[in-house]
């Protein structure tokens, strides 16, 4: 199972947030699993069309995913997935 790690910034909205194990084979499937474990979180990560929000970064290992539109990047069983917020100024 892949492991999903979250930015601590999301703890403000999901106080019980912790690293989770998921069975998804793609990023889209991983997000569905995240949504099951933390209802409402998907809306924080993707917009109403299902596209990755502009200021959210998802890494598989050390690589940023390449498909923010349909979230088709492949996730292997041993992968570490990281859900981060993008840096912003101001």
């Amino acid at each position: 199972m892949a492991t999903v790690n979250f930015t601590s910034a999301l703890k403000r909205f999901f106080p019980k947030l912790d690293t989770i194990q998921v069975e998804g084979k793609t990023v889209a499937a991983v997000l569905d699993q995240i949504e099951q474990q933390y209802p409402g979180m998907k809306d924080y990560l993707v917009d109403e069309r299902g596209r990755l929000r502009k200021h959210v970064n998802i890494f598989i290992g050390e690589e940023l995913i390449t498909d923010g539109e349909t979230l088709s990047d492949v996730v292997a069983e041993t992968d570490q997935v990281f859900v981060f917020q993008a840096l912003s100024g101001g």
Partner: protein
Amino acid sequence: MNKIILVGTSKGLVVYRHVENKWRIETTQFVGFPVSMVYVDERHGTWWVCLTHRHWGLKLHRSSDQGKSWEALPVPKYPEDAQLQSGQPATLRKIWTMQQAGPDRPTGLYLGTEPGGLFFSNNGGDSFELVESLWNHPSRKDQWFGAGRDHPFIHSIVVDPRNSNHLYVAVSCAGVFETMDGGNSWQARNNGLVAAYLPNPQAEIGHDPHRMFACAMQPDILWQQNHCGIYRSTDGGRQWTDIAGVNNFPNYGFAIAIDHRNPQRAWVIPAVSDEIRVAVNLALCVCRTEDGGQTWQELRQGLPQENCFDIVFRHAFANIDDVLVFGTTTGNLYLSENGGDQWTCLSGNLARVESICMTVG
């Protein structure tokens, strides 16, 4: 019962309550998050806020216990086939305003959004649906456009207290639209407005109202602070009259407040111009008319009169009768309890003020 002021700032919600003759901060909420809209549904005292997270998108929250607890609700979604002018799919960019429906629709609630959306909820805000008749208005794709934003947006919704099927919306940029049939059909109501930035300044559509109200006691009296002046209508928007002041003071600005008991009375907060968005002469001033805009009185007592760069956003000015409050882009909050004759600074240390609502509770 006390007066309460909800202040939505770029870094949180600040709530003031008037107790024992003093205004005190009762609570701060959502600290660190942009609170872009605040609204109180006066029918049952429900408080609403919209958070515009830079990273996580828009979030709607409501409270039925005056901010002691909040419930997160789904934000409205555009239908899958809804398209922008460019042909790209429409997605929610911002919730600009909320408005309760008429008294015969106790769970009816409207939202004005960007891009160019009017949404309606018939279940108290549990869910919203796009009002497709306005979205499909033949002018939208070719004649609506953004102003200071990438897309047009609906920032003012007026419900006629005499008739729930009679509504106005104001769109930046498109202008004012009216429906008499509960939103089945819409007519532009922009006669008399001037859009100085268009090749044809008298075009039917393409105007930039910044904020619009109707007088509750006489709902055919409409007021708007526009990009190109201040306008008033005495016939329900059929004809608008420019009521800007002598030598264009006041003229440019965003916010307007009106006296719902007196259709002759309103307040605006002038800025220099589109190009120079600061207080006129760097001195903050509220202008009041008592005669329907024929003349304006400058109200400056208690307001900074030098080196003042503040302006006031369109939703950051509120009043109940003679109690007025506005918040500025530099985080100042000013209050008057005598119709603007005298002002007091409630705070000089807030973040940029986005939206203000005053209520009693």
